[in-house]
């Protein structure tokens, strides 16, 4: 295997805090990019300026590790029926650098899947940068469902123009070390981003998330909801930043986080930041970190679940939710495969039978 290098500052948020808390970034050991010759397929220059959450150092590494960047355009005023799929097969040590331009008034679904059925060791990565032109609609589904010693770097950036709507569903279902950045630049008035992020961090796994939404246009809306579960010996860091920039009058941002701690020796770090340079805006953040609430637990018990079964139900619900929203077969298969490893084959098959894409023929 080729040598490795360290990316020292991955997932750095716009506003940092005390360094001794070790919450400002994560350092990740990655392979030195393979020599691919000079004739790389590069993305159009316009994508260079799109922030993608993981930081310039990690972004440059993914670009250098990807021999062939892929550029996709969704023509104006069209609806692309088949999802654009970025398929990261971990067994092949894949890196992907994708640029997508969703033209004015167009609509597209983008799926980013990283799955590995077998235990193994590799570093995979996906960098996806998206331009959402005026009044476009972009639906993004990210599924990171790795096992074993797979490390994954995920950068996602969206530039949203006037009236563009972006919704993002993230499911982090496994991986030894997963660092995922997301940045949305709401440049145009009335641009909206809705982010739903769910995760299950298993024993010995580390999940590191950096969400950044920059509100520049007027009357933008940014909603970020993150919820997940931590098993024994897991580590999770979540940084969420809403940056209400001067001029973003009428904009509103919300961050909500729920963490279910279901094990010992866990490390749960959260840095929910609101930056505000404007008076006519509203920013809210709420977090609940701990066990299942007594009211919820009592309700579940009254319906016959023990406390352990209630916790197991929450784990299953993350996979079921991913299946319910998986828009095509590759992502559904990745979820089912990972569910099999985490929940067992019976539960996985049971969910797939009722919720798999073939039942609904897609949602």
């Amino acid at each position: 295997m080729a040598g490795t290098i360290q990316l020292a500052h991955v997932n750095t948020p716009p506003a940092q805090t005390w360094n001794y808390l070790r919450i400002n970034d994560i350092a990740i050991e990655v392979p030195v990019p393979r020599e691919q010759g000079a004739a790389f397929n590069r993305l159009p220059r316009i994508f260079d300026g799109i922030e993608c959450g993981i930081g310039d150092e990690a972004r440059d590494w993914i670009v250098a590790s990807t021999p062939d960047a892929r550029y996709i355009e969704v023509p104006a005023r069209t609806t692309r029926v088949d999802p654009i799929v970025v398929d990261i097969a971990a067994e092949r040590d894949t890196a992907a650098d994708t640029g997508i331009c969703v033209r004015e008034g167009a609509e597209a679904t983008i799926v980013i899947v990283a799955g590995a059925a077998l235990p193994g060791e590799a570093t995979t990565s996906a960098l996806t940068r998206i331009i959402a032109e005026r009044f476009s609609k972009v639906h993004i589904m990210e599924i990171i469902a790795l096992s074993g010693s797979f490390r994954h770097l995920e950068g996602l950036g969206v530039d949203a123009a006037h009236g563009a709507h972006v919704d993002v569903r993230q499911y982090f279902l496994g991986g030894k070390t997963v660092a995922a950045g997301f940045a949305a630049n709401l440049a145009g008035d009335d641009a909206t981003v809705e982010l739903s992020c769910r995760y299950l961090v298993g024993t010995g796994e580390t999940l590191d998330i950096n969400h950044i939404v920059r509100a520049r246009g007027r009357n933008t809306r940014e909603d970020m909801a993150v919820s997940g579960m931590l098993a024994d010996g897991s580590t999770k860091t979540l940084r969420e930043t809403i940056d209400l920039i001067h001029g973003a009058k009428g904009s509103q941002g919300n961050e909500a986080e729920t963490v279910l701690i279901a094990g010992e020796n866990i490390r749960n770090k959260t840095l929910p930041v609101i930056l505000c340079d404007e008076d006519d805006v509203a920013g809210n953040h709420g977090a609940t970190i701990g066990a299942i609430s007594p009211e919820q637990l009592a309700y579940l018990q009254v319906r016959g679940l023990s406390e352990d079964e209630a916790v197991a139900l929450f784990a299953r619900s993350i996979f079921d939710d991913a299946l319910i929203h998986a828009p095509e077969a590759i992502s559904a298969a990745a979820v089912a495969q990972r569910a099999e490893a985490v929940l067992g084959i019976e539960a996985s098959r049971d969910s797939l039978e009722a919720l798999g894409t073939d039942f609904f023929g897609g949602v």
Partner: protein
Amino acid sequence: MARTHVQDINRSLYDFVMPEVDAERYADGLTPAIVRAISEKKHEPAWMLEMRLEALERYHTMQMPANWGPSTKGLDLNHISTYVAPNAKRTNSWDDVPADIKETFERLGIPEAERETLAGVGAQYDSEIVYHNMRESVADQGVIYTTIEDALADPELEPVVRKHFGTLIPMTEHKFSALHYAVWSGSSFVYVPAGVTLPFPLQSYFRLNAQGAGQFEHTLIIVEEGGNLHFIEGCSAPKYNVANLHAGAVEIFVGSGAHMRYSTIENWSKNMFNLNTKRATVGADAHMEWVSGSFGSHVSYLYPSTILAGDNSDCEFTGITFAGATQDLDTGCKVTMNGKNTNASVNTKSISKDGGINTFRSSVIIGPRAENARASVSCQSLMLDDMSRSDTIPAMDVRCAGASVGHEATIGRIADETVFYLMSRGCSEGEARTMVVNGFANPISKELPMEYAVEMNNLIKLEMEGAIG
């Protein structure tokens, strides 16, 4: 619609300068010679001088964080005098205090407050305490309220100081805590014996009169098992065109079952760099309360921190910060929860106007053994115009499965609906906005000692100009 104007804090009450008469002022800058001179003048034990010299070395090697915090540009220690002693002996009678200094504290209302509502008062003028007194009835119960300098000279108290001093806030904490330990001067030492409740608060007031000087007072408070103390700290300074520096340290040891409340109104002038450090460690079943009002200074780094070491201990932090023009106030708190069944409640408000910058910064750490620990953090920020800035940066680190943390933050401005509602009931727009701002600050101001609550209302004197256009 014309924007109504909320007036800046009226500072005339504090902004008066007394001439520096016969003061003993050491050279600007930081050298071992200055540190030795301070130590020598105080006739300190050798261990204290060693500590000072070690701290000075560390100060020179440590850096300010490059990746966060307000800029400290403009603060040049080569142009700050670290020691300015007034020509006055420490006394327990206001009559013996030199006239100009006495007048200063009278204008600040200290002797009056002492007569009416306090159990004891210490007054520091520049680098030294000039007045110290405590009611006899309190002294009779074994309460000690003196300076660390005097305590070090007392063979019975010296070991107590030595055991505690510098242990809670290490000199390695940050660059300015190193500086503090190198040049600290002026201080409060409070010892409350087990089971003793003080009927009235003790108050220390810190006045920095000298231009281009630093104030580095150290406060050491020990409340033994079951004791109960309310300590008030006030600070102010006149405005100069050159930077002044405040880098004090407050170390509080709260024994098991004890109750401690620490109230601060900080109203430094806008040329002040306020890099103060405060920390309390709290024993089992004990209670710690911080009430903090930050109105002044050019730049502040201020995060009172609490370590809930004992089981069933709890702490409350209540703070308000008002940042106006030219102010960059980075304030908040830190809580570390190590004991079982511990409880922390943080409640802060901030108001930003005229380009002022407010940053709420906090950390809540729940250790692996803190079963059933509960923390709640709530911070609300009010933006009064679109030139100002308000950032909220709360960090949480939970390492215990049986703990829970709730957190909420909101940033916004005065809602138009609210103003309209109040106007529909006959208020002018100005009155309506005043009501909303007062209502916003009220839950915090009512936690302040009475005289400070009144002072705060004076401080946030809201004057509305302009009308509906």
